[in-house]
């Protein structure tokens, strides 16, 4: 009972640990974070390992590949309707995605599809998150490990270790993406 009362008095918080550095993993984290922030929740995003890719100034490293990604739907955003309906990830053998340029083509198609569906570019979305007060923290250990410099990252983020992340984030909720 006491614990329940304690939970009720905590401010509404939401936190995500982002470990993946591809475009299709970056979008959900920023979409959920911006929505939660708009609903007055205290939002904390913690970027570790490849997740650091999501907060680099140069976002060209954020790509998407159907290789070893069987869940991905690969549909052409251009062309006649019958062509757009084909899910190439189901039709073609996985070997095709190892060909040079496959990832570039998939990334181009993914970005185009996202814009067609009314999403905003990832850079704009993360700026919106910062504007809405989402706190972003880069894992200091991962920054050193990957050999990044502090100036490689977008403005408005902080650097800290895992202990400081757990010290300031909710005891009750932590979603791992």
């Amino acid at each position, binding site marked *: 009972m006491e614990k329940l009362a304690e939970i009720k008095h905590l401010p509404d918080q939401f936190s995500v640990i982002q470990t993946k550095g591809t475009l299709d993993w970056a979008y959900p984290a920023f*979409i959920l974070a*911006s*929505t939660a922030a*708009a*609903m007055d929740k205290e939002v904390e995003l913690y970027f570790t390992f490849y997740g650091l890719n999501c907060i680099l100034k140069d976002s060209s490293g954020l790509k998407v590949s159907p290789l070893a990604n069987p869940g991905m739907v690969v549909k052409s955003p251009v062309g006649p309707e019958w062509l757009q309906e084909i899910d190439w990830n189901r039709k073609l053998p996985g070997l095709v995605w190892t060909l040079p340029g496959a990832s570039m083509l998939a990334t181009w198609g993914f970005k185009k599809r996202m814009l067609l569906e*009314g*999403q*905003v570019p990832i850079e704009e979305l993360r700026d919106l998150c910062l504007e809405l007060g989402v706190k972003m923290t880069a894992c200091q250990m991962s920054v050193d490990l990957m050999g990044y410099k502090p100036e490689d990252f977008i403005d408005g983020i902080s650097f800290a270790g895992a202990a400081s992340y757990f010290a300031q984030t909710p005891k009750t909720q932590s979603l791992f993406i």
Partner: protein
Amino acid sequence: MKDNIVYLCLCYINSAYQVIVEVLLDILIDTKGLACPMPIIKLKKSLAENPELDNLFYIESTDKGGLQDIPAFCQQQCLVYELLEEQPCIIFKVWRST
């Protein structure tokens, strides 16, 4: 006679003022063509930029999820809402409860 004219003028100015105030208090948020979470974020931003208690927000959206999302957001933020139109695009009227 002169007083009457002055009175009429004042009435006219007053009603014109009222119309202007009403127009200024109505805020149209166009989120047509934008998907989740943009309609909610634009509504939130507009709420922050227009803190007047009498503001009326008209939000237009083509996002299908908005039909559930906008009411959910309003309930959570203690706002009053009314669905004005569903086709061809969703229009919600949103205002602050007093």
